[in-house]
Structures are given as structure tokens and as C-alpha cells.
């Protein structure tokens, strides 16, 4: 076969065993190190994302526990101020950048093609690249921390404290370059999600049939594309100020400290929504399965996801209420910050209605999803309080905000993620997580979390400032801090139970079968774990709940799972139209490739060189980067990229 056949009409068929073996041969990744470095399988990449993010979660958690020992009693000196300041900065940076988004990217990477009825993400090699860059950037920033040069100005990194004058070490250079580095991963990952949802859905998967998780990740990805450039630019300007004496933030030469804050929070606040909306999507998809009914108000919930993000672009100044901007300007942002609670209310009442009009089956996953509703409300109302300008002038930069943001990030990210792990672990591995250990796991985490963070609201209302390495006696904070420290260790024990459960169940868990929860969406139609090619044939989707159609009886049409487009001329999936999901073309998918890994090594060399001012290595890294991109993009006949391919 010298020419391609992309203009052929794909055959509609059922799959025989022989054809399954053929598909396996086409899609299988080689075993061993070669496969490890070159795979572009979205499931492999998704799992790596999840595992890596959990490693960072544990690192960030360990940092938090050390801080909680220091803060358990007043006037302790376990840590020096510099150690404490690096710890709280690393903790924030790790949790927000290296755990919260990557873990959601991991689930979405694994699940999206399965949910959409595709064989891989739109750009499989870009997907691998996004993961490798994430790991490299994480290692880069932790390398700084391990030699005592971690960020020490908080994750928000305000200037002028971050400038060379006040922060002469390499701490800020590691952080600034590391964030620009990580931004590459986030941006390409977001682009991949957007194109995947627009082009690779199975025929019939119109946008009103997308699972809410897809809406969440799509919305978050669109936001990331828009806001990550702001923060990458901010860190680049800071690095220029520090290394070459430019004056973007240099007050003595007309620079503006508030420029940093605007650039950072224009990114920072939408990012907060980016790391909760996909997790809310997990709850919107997972909770109804255990309530044995479709979610109440699919359309309002999907639209509220998008509405939250749109409003989320107009609230960043609420991080800057105390900067002395005019009250009239601030009051608009105050209004927006209060109004943004309306779409959240839609989601909360949709979940409540789903429980009330369903028959909840109480499993560990259900408990994590349902408890998220309560934690979300607590984090939501404390957020609404900080949105009120005069109240925020009191609340801001006290422990009230620390309590608030942990209810948001643990309540709306960690709890749904652990729930999602209980829910989808059988799909990932073919085995169930242990339910009894799971319930113990849930209650330990739930009680530990609330013991740690509910009293912290009071610590804040009684005036304890954030980011202090110690505090005096007699302020009324002593016993509250002791309770918080105790609770944080209980919470950590809960996370440990989760890890034990995973370790035990990987070997001894019950076999799951394809659909252990009797759930309605496409990922449950394939074996657990799914084969490398995901689907025998590309399914034809007829409703929002393909596997519940016979029971919901909403229409005559039925989703076809066993008979569909048989795409077996090399790696292929179907391309469909953005809105209606009508069949459009055959997408040729790339083979496994070392290019993403090689490009990552080249880019990493470039960033290390910038850090150390090894300009010859920077030049070499730059050339290698260009070379790796050229190898990657070199037209391939098999992908239909050469001139002869299209003309049979």
C-alpha cells in the first residue's frame, strides 16, 4: 500500500476475535523501557498523571504536617522563619500547580476518549509531551527546594519581595522559570482537550449528550488557554527584572508592584475555577449513578459550569481589595464575586434534587461525592463572605481565608478526586477497591478534615494572620491551632488508608467486570481495563445514557456499541462535526514516538541553562528543541501528511 485511503467509506461491521487481535497489534505499546518512553496511549498517560499528582499531593501534605507541628503551640522554634516560608510557599505551589490541575488532567486524559467513544485524544503525542513537561517542571522546582532555594514568597509571589533586591538567592529564579516551564504543559494540554471534544466524539454524541465532566474540563481548558499566558508573562518579566535589570516591577525606576498582582490574579482566579469545575463534573456524573437516576437539570448544570467560568474572569480584583484601589471600582468586583455564587447554587440544588428523587446506594464513592456537596457549601458561603468588600478588608490575609480555600481545594477537589478514584479504579485496573476499608478511609478523611479546618474559621475571625511562622500567646489562638494540628494528622491518616487500600486492592481486589456500578456512560461499555484501542468499533450514540436506554425508555433510538465503524487500517479514529457529532472524516493517529520525550529533554536543558546562565547550553537546548520539533512535525506518509497521500 503506497497511498493512503483516507477518502474511503469506513466499513460498518461487528468485530471478530481475529480482528480484535489485529486491533491490539496496531494499538499496543511495546513492553519495557522503550514503550515507557514512547507510548502515546491516553490511558497510560492519564494514569501517569494521576500517580504523579498523588506523589506531589503526598509531598505537599508532608510539608503541611511539618508546618502544623510548628504551629501547634505558640512561640515554637522547630523551624526557622526561612524554612517555614519556603515550606508554606512549596506547599501552596505543589498543591495548586503540581497536584490540583494535573490530577484532574489525569482523569480527563484517561476518561475522555472512553466517554466520547474515541480511540485516543486528538493529539496523542502532544498528550505525552504535556505529561513529560509537567514531570520535568515539577522536578525542576523541587530541585530548587532540595538545595534550599525553593520559592519563599508564597505561591502568589508578590513583588517587590520577589525582586532581586529583597530576595537575592536563586529561589525566585527556580520558581519563575519553573512556572513558565509548567505553563507549556498546561497550555498544550488545554489545546488538546478542546480539539478532542470538538472533533473526535463518536457519531451521534452531540454536545447536549456530553457528560458533565467533559463540560468541566472543556471549560477549564478554554480558561487555561486564555489565562496561562498572563502568568507566564508575569514570571518572565520578573525573571528579566532579576537577571537583566529591566524595570517592570522596579519601583525606583517607575515599575509597578500592582502590575504583578493584576497579571497574577487575572490568571489566579480563573485557575481556581479550572481546578474545581472538572471535579464538580465528576460529582455531577458519579453521584447520579449511585442515586440510580440521571442528574436532575442536566442543561442548567452544564450551562452553570460555563457561566461560573465566564463570571470567574471578572472577579480577580477581590484578591486585591486592600491595595487602595478606588472603592467604586472595587465595588463592581465585590458585586461580581457575590453574584458568582448563583451558578454554584444551581449545581448544589441539582445534586440535592438528584439525591431526593433517586434511590442512593451508599458506597464509598457515593460518600465522597455526597460529602463534597456539604464541603462545597461551607467553602462557598465563606467565599461569599470574602466577596463582600468591607468584610473582606477584615477577613483577607487571616486564617479565615486559609480555612475557606482549603474547603474549596480539599472539599471540591480532593474529595471528588478520591471519590472518582473509588468510582473509576475498577475501570483503570479491573479490580474493585475494598469497600470496608473505603468507608473507614472516608470517615477518617472527613472527620480529620473538618476537625482541622472548621475551627480555623474561628482562628481567622479572632484575627490570626496568614503566613506567620509563629504567633504570640494570649491572642486566643492557642487551642484552636492545637485542634487544627491534630485534625490535620487525622486527615493524613485518612489519605494513608487510601494508599493502603489501593496497594491491597491492586493485588487482592474483587474482579470488577466491565460495568460494576451498572453505570450509563460509554466507558463502562468496554472491558476493565480497556484494551489499547478502547472500542472494537466506533459506537454510534443515540442518547446521553447509552447503557440505560432500555430502562429509561426516552426514545426508540438505541446506541449501537457492537456494530459500527471498523477502523483498522493502522491507528485511526473518527472525526466528527463540532456541534452535532455527525461523521466527517477518518483521523489518522500517530504511532508511539520518542519525539515528545526528546523535546522535553531539550526544553528542560534550555530552562536549566537559563537558570544557571550557561548560555552555550541554552543555545544547544534551543537548537535541540527546534530539531525535536522538526522530527516530530516531519510529514509522515502514514498520517496522510505527504503530498502523494491524498491523491489515490
Amino acid at each position: 500500500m503506497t497511498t493512503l485511503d483516507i477518502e474511503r467509506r469506513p466499513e460498518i461491521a461487528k468485530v471478530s476475535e481475529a480482528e480484535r487481535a489485529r486491533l491490539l497489534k496496531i494499538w499496543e505499546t511495546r513492553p519495557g523501557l522503550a514503550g515507557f518512553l514512547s507510548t502515546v496511549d491516553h490511558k497510560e498517560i492519564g494514569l501517569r498523571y494521576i500517580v504523579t499528582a498523588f506523589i506531589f499531593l503526598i509531598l505537599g501534605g508532608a510539608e503541611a504536617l511539618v508546618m502544623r507541628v510548628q504551629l501547634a503551640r505558640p512561640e515554637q522554634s522547630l523551624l526557622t522563619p526561612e524554612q517555614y516560608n519556603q515550606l508554606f510557599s512549596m506547599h501552596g505551589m505543589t498543591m495548586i500547580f503540581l497536584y490540583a490541575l494535573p490530577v484532574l488532567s489525569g482523569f480527563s486524559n484517561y476518561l475522555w476518549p472512553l466517554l466520547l467513544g474515541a480511540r485516543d485524544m486528538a493529539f496523542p503525542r502532544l498528550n505525552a509531551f504535556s505529561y513529560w513537561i509537567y514531570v520535568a517542571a515539577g522536578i525542576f522546582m523541587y530541585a530548587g527546594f532540595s538545595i534550599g532555594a525553593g520559592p519563599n514568597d508564597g505561591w502568589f509571589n508578590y513583588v517587590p519581595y520577589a525582586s532581586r533586591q529583597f530576595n537575592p538567592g536563586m529561589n525566585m529564579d527556580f520558581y519563575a522559570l519553573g512556572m513558565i516551564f509548567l505553563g507549556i504543559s498546561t497550555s498544550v494540554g488545554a489545546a488538546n482537550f478542546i480539539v478532542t471534544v470538538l472533533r473526535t466524539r463518536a457519531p451521534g454524541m452531540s454536545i447536549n449528550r456530553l457528560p458533565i465532566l467533559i463540560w468541566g474540563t472543556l471549560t477549564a481548558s478554554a480558561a487555561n488557554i486564555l489565562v496561562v499566558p498572563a502568568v507566564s508573562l508575569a514570571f518572565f518579566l520578573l525573571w528579566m527584572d532579576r537577571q537583566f535589570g529591566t524595570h517592570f516591577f522596579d519601583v525606583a525606576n517607575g515599575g509597578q508592584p500592582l502590575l504583578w498582582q493584576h497579571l497574577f490574579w487575572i490568571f489566579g482566579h480563573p485557575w481556581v475555577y479550572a481546578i474545581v469545575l472538572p471535579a464538580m463534573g465528576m460529582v455531577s456524573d458519579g453521584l447520579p449513578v449511585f442515586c440510580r437516576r440521571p442528574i436532575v437539570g442536566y442543561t442548567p448544570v452544564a450551562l452553570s459550569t460555563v457561566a461560573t467560568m465566564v463570571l470567574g474572569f471578572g472577579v480577580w480584583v477581590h484578591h486585591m481589595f486592600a491595595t487602595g484601589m478606588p472603592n467604586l471600582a472595587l465595588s463592581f468586583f465585590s458585586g461580581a464575586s457575590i453574584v458568582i455564587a448563583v451558578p454554584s447554587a444551581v449545581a448544589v440544588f441539582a445534586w440535592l434534587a438528584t439525591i431526593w428523587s433517586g434511590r442512593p446506594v451508599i458506597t464509598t464513592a457515593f460518600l465522597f461525592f455526597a460529602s463534597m456537596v456539604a464541603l462545597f457549601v461551607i467553602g462557598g458561603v465563606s467565599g461569599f463572605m470574602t466577596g463582600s468588600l468591607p468584610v473582606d478588608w477584615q477577613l483577607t490575609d487571616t486564617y479565615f481565608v486559609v480555612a475557606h480555600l482549603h474547603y474549596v481545594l480539599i472539599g471540591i477537589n480532593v474529595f471528588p478526586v478520591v471519590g472518582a478514584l473509588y468510582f473509576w479504579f475498577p475501570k483503570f485496573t479491573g479490580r474493585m477497591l475494598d469497600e470496608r476499608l473505603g468507608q473507614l478511609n472516608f470517615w477518617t478523611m472527613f472527620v480529620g478534615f473538618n476537625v482541622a479546618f472548621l475551627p480555623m474559621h474561628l482562628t481567622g475571625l479572632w484575627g490570626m494572620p496568614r503566613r506567620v511562622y509563629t504567633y504570640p500567646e494570649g491572642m486566643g489562638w492557642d487551642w484552636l491551632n492545637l485542634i487544627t494540628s491534630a485534625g490535620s494528622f487525622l486527615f493524613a491518616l485518612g489519605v494513608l488508608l487510601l494508599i493502603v487500600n489501593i496497594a491491597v486492592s491492586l493485588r487482592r481486589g474483587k474482579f470488577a467486570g466491565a460495568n460494576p456500578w451498572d453505570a450509563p456512560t460509554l466507558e463502562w461499555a468496554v472491558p476493565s481495563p480497556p484494551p489499547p484501542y478502547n472500542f472494537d468499533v466506533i459506537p454510534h450514540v443515540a442518547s446521553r445514557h447509552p447503557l440505560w436506554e432500555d430502562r429509561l425508555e426516552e426514545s426508540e433510538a438505541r446506541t449501537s456499541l457492537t456494530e459500527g465503524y471498523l477502523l483498522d487500517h493502522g491507528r485511526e479514529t473518527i472525526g466528527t462535526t463540532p456541534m452535532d457529532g455527525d461523521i466527517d472524516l477518518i483521523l489518522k493517529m500517530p504511532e508511539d514516538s520518542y519525539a515528545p520525550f526528546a523535546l522535553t529533554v531539550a526544553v528542560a536543558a534550555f530552562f536549566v541553562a537559563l537558570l544557571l546562565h550557561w548560555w552555550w547550553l541554552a543555545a544547544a537546548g534551543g537548537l535541540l528543541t527546534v530539531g525535536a520539533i522538526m522530527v516530530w512535525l516531519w510529514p509522515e506518509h502514514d498520517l496522510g501528511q505527504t503530498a502523494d497521500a491524498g491523491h489515490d
Partner: protein
Amino acid sequence: MRRIERLFRTLYFAVPAVLWSVTPLQCALADFPVSYLHGNGSKAYPVVSLTWGLLAISFIVIVIVGALLTWGIIAKRARARDIAATPVGRSGGGTQWLIWGTGISTVALFGSLVWTVAVLADINGPPSKPTVTIEITGQQWWWRARYLSDDVSRIVTTANEIHIPAGQPVRIKLIGADVIHSFWVPALTGKTDTIPGQTNTMWLEADKPGIYRGPCTEYCGAQHAHMTAFVVADPPDVFKAWWDGQIAPASAPADEQEARGQVGFVFHCGACHTVRGTEAGGTVAPELTHLMTRKTIAAGTLDNIPSNLAGWIANPQGVKPGTNMPAPGLSGQEVADITAYLETLR
């Protein structure tokens, strides 16, 4: 409009009044010097009411949703543990939840927004013309306070303890010297940042005499934890006497040790600190002409008693690691002399 305004005014004062009438709570709150659940001035009262009001709304929301959630799970839970045995269906009625839930939430949110804007309008400016203007500079890691006056001879600088006349609004100009700090006195006013390159203005008022504590609340480096300002509200005549006292230069040493201490102070400390009436004229560190009128040293880190003073002079890095005050390498005798001299700075 007027009626709405009256309604809000009633709300402002009703909530704290009710709480205040509960004496145990009043006692309890007195133990929390930086709490913002109670306040002591015309700028603080409306905000305290709003804070309690929003807390109440938040609490009610949490209780309602928490109850609906728990009750729903218990009441509706499937008997069977086996998920596949529980039938799937789409029972109706759910949309009502969305309409009512979102509707009521929106009303509550809108009401809170109106209340917020009303409070904002109320505290936007002082009720009468401020009698005193103080320029406060946030520095790593202490507060400089400069009392401004049209009469140049009355301009005076002090540090960390900011005296104001009780019952009168005071204008505060905030300047950043190095990095960003935030000035906050919870019982009197919310936060405003001190940002290098810009001057922020705000006002505050204490309606009765007292000492009001204010920790720095923008992260500013190693000793962010030890950067406390105290606003000392005096009766107006006491305040005037204090200001007059601050204008006076330091008195001369009375005995030989104090004289030795003065020489040592000028030599070791004078490049950074000022004591008016001596050759010590440095301006990068706190002005010390009337050091002994202050209750604490090192921005609230230690009580201002001789033993603490001596310890601080001998080893500042041990007390406040990272502080800009270097270890001067003094002998024991020098520490004793300088401490004795500092004790004369009343």
C-alpha cells in the same frame, strides 16, 4: 430611600447590641485582642454588623443544605447494598428544586450585595473632618509613624505605637518603604496595604480610649510574624500632652554609666537610630528619642523591660532571626551601659 436607610441603620446597630447584651460573650471577646467580631469605632460598627449578618446567613445556608443532604440520604437510601439490584429510573419533580433553591439563593445574595454597598457608602469617608493626619510607613519589620502638621515644629516621628485622640476621626496616609505590608487594626478598621511607589489613604476612629493591636497582614518576608503596630487611643487632652512630650529632645544622661551608654549608643547604634539631642541621627531604623514611652520593642516582639532591652541589644538575631538590626558585638559592660542609657529616654 430614607426608610431603607433607616432600616439599614437599625440593622447595623441591632446585631451588635443584641450580642453585646449577652455578657458572657462580651467577656469572652475581650480575651481576643485581634478579633474582628467586635469593634470600637464608627468605622468598625457597620462592618461588624455586616460580618455577623453574613455569618448568620452563611450558617443558615450550611444548616439547611446539610440537613437536606443528610435527611435525603437517610430517607431515600436504597435498602439493597447491591447497586445493580436497585432499579434505574427518572422519577419526576427535580426541577422544582433548581427553581426554588436558586431563586431563594439569588434573593439572599442580592440582599447581601445591597447591604454590602450600603456599608461601603457608610464607611467611605470619616463622619467629620479628621483632626490628626499620620503618615505610616511599613518597613521590614516595623512601622514608622510620622505625625504631620502645618506647624513644622510639631512634626514628630515615632515607631510601632501610634497614639490617636479617642472619639475623633484620624486620617492615615500609608507608604511602602521596601516591600508590601498591610496596615490593619481589626477593632478599628480593615486592612489597607502599604505599597512602594504609591500613597494610600484611609481613616479610622476609636470611640473610647484603649490599646488596639494590629499585626501586619501582607506577607513581607522573614519576620512577617513579628511586625505588630499598636494604636493607642488616649483622651484628647492626654493625646495632646503625649504629642508635646514627643516633640521634646532627649534629656541628658544623669550619671557616669548613662553617659558611657550614650557614647556607646551614638557609636554603635547612631548610624541607624535617631535620638534627638544627640549625634545619633540615623533614619533607617526606629526613632528612639522617647523609647521608654513605648510598651513593647522590636514591633511588638518583646515587652519593653530592661532585661528584654538588654537581650535584644546583645543578640537581635536570636530574638528576631533575619531582622535588619545587626549583632553589634557588644561586651557585657557595653550592653549594660547602653541599656541604662536607653532607660533614660522617657
